[in-house]
């Protein structure tokens, strides 16, 4: 090791002592030193970082280096480069991150690359080739939907037509239906497939209307072998769009061409959609996707991390999955944040690092959900009065939502059973226990109730 290399390691210990662990970890640890003929070059991750180091810490670094070299600091230059971006220690050594080998030495604005798709024909489908059955994590929440989707993909236009997938936001509906599209495309590359978000379909109708091009519009949509339309609730209140879709639907189903639809609600619950459409949606198969359970959330995190070439420790995955419960997007966002933190601090991805990385997200998510909030949400959902949560009425349309609210309160809050009983009109704690058991049993056998419970849980936690 040369004197300058020794000098840098001395600087590191001296700065750690002077700045304290936090500042050192944030600002100094990401730096990488290079010894050259002119002195010492410190490689910083980006331009913004360079400015902070120059303004705040260069003086201290020079002072520490000067002390080591006997009074005069060697010339220290700062430059932006990729050397400082060492892979975090948890990244698997055998698998470099995508693009790492070709990363530019100097950070600069890079021209966006064209989207990678599986050939020109595939591009017209608007499918994302990454959304496949292989990359779809399956659990209790989506196993039925997945099995049905696989059947549809293997026999499009034959088994279930239309296939209607519903569930809350961010639960993987788009992934599932695009997996169908990709499998159909893989098996039959000449099949005419189109994935479209309902909002874009509305825009297509408007454009056809403006350009008086309805014949062309119809010709295109009626000629498809597989139409995948996402978030059909966007059709609400758009009568002309609904009419055009009605014709397209009839033409495709009559010709045994497959239609796959998603929505955030059960078809009959979409207010503002024409009855002739909602009744047609139930001709085929309607399947729900529920919020993922803990084990499935862990599996999703592990699979996502693997795709990013990170080996995620299962304790860290469990920690994230236990704390981020409402939907898959939020879960993936939390994982990104943890990976970013590990990269930024050059720390191994430990449980402690994950806790630190998610501190503000958890603080925001752990805001208290009160029993009043639960009662109001459940009452609104079932269109009953909040007062009915406290009343003595025992009719089923009131008693059932009240039991659901009690079960949710037990699941979400830390309240004791007597306290829950008090909050529901001074009921005994055994009544609360009975309500919780009843709802638990009903969730096993009544899929509609299980779905409603899941939706309420998601509403309260998101």
């Amino acid at each position, binding site marked *: 090791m040369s004197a300058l290399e020794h000098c840098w390691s001395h600087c590191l210990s001296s700065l750690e002592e002077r700045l304290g662990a936090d500042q050192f970890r*944030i*600002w100094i640890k*990401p730096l990488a030193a290079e010894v050259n003929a002119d002195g010492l070059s410190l490689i910083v*991750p*980006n*331009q*913004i*970082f360079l*400015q*902070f180091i120059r*303004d705040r810490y260069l003086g201290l670094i020079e002072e520490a280096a000067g002390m080591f070299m006997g009074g005069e600091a060697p010339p220290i230059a700062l430059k932006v480069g990729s050397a400082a971006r060492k892979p975090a220690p948890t990244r698997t050594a055998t698998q470099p991150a*995508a*693009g790492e080998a070709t990363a530019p030495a100097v*950070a*600069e*604005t*890079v*021209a*966006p*690359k*064209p*989207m990678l798709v599986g050939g020109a024909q595939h591009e017209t489908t*608007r499918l*994302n080739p990454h959304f496949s059955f292989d990359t779809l994590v399956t659990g209790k929440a989506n196993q039925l939907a997945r099995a049905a989707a696989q059947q549809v993909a293997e026999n499009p236009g034959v088994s279930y037509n239309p296939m209607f997938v519903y569930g*809350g*936001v*961010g639960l993987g509906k788009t992934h599932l239906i695009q997996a169908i599209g990709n499998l159909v495309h893989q098996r039959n590359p000449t099949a005419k497939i189109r994935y479209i*978000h309902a*909002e*874009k379909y509305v825009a297509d109708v408007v454009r056809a209307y403006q350009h008086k091009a309805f014949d062309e519009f119809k010709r295109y949509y009626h000629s498809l072998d597989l139409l995948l339309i996402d*978030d059909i609730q*966007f059709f609400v209140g758009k009568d002309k769009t609904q009419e055009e879709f009605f014709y397209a639907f009839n033409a495709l189903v009559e010709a045994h061409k497959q239609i796959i639809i998603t929505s*955030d609600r059960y078809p009959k619950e979409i207010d503002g959609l024409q009855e002739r459409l909602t009744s047609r949606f139930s001709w085929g198969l309607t399947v729900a996707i529920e919020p993922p359970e803990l084990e499935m959330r862990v599996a999703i995190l592990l699979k996502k991390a693997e795709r*990013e070439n990170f080996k995620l420790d299962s304790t860290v995955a469990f920690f994230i999955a236990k704390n981020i419960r*409402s*939907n898959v*997007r*939020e879960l*993936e*966002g939390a994982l*990104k*944040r943890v990976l*970013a*933190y590990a990269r*930024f601090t050059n720390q191994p991805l430990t449980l402690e690092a994950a806790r630190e990385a998610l501190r*503000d*997200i958890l603080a*925001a*998510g752990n*805001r208290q959900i009160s029993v009043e909030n639960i009662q109001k949400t459940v009452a609104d959902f079932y269109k009953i009065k909040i007062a009915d949560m406290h009343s003595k009425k025992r009719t089923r349309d009131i008693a059932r939502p009240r039991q659901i609210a009690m079960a949710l309160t037990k699941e979400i809050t830390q309240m004791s059973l007597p306290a829950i009983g008090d909050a529901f009109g001074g009921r005994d704690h055994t009544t609360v226990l009975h309500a919780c058991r009843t709802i638990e049993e009903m969730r096993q056998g009544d899929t509609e109730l299980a779905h409603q419970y899941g939706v309420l849980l998601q509403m309260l936690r*998101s």
Partner: protein
Amino acid sequence: MVLDLQLPAVPSFEGYVAGDNAEPLFMLGEWVAGADDIRFLYLWGEAGVGKSYLLDATAARLEVAVIAPPAPLPTSLPHDAVLIVDGVDALDPDEQIRLFDHYNTLREGTGRLLATGSKPPMLLGLRDDLTTRLGWGLVYQLRALSDGDKAAALRRRAFGLGFELSDEVADYLLRHAVRDLPSLNALLERVNIEALSQRRAVTVPLVREVLLSERSL
């Protein structure tokens, strides 16, 4: 009489005091540099923590515009566009759908989105399908500066205005004025004008006079 001919401080990364925001700043740098894995970045925090400042600095660097609702979003976007939206809280229902649509377009393609809001995505009270998407990318809270960092920022601003800010005056400002950095900077600029017009140094008595005269207005 002193003509108010001061140039406004141009937002730049150099002019931003990071405080506890080193990690979000680093990631913003990555976003600006076009990192493939940071295409969607959402920054949130209370008023005065520097969200708009950073977005303006970013926009200046990339030579694109910042859209601050209720100013309308573009009606259509190429899939490789760079979109910067300041204050998503103010999006009306139609514009929420438009941002949702743009998000999908950018995500399907190679585009990038930088957005800010006053709260984390899930607490914004906007459409679920939009907030879950905003929470899908990297999300950071920008934290308010400590008093020490604010004093450092004020000293830097004073230097830009051509005078040296004493510790005593910095301390007085932090104890007696509205304490977010934009308000403190604005006050400093008013004090500077007063100092120039009265040909006095920037001292605690002068700052007190300016504050008193503003309160009596």
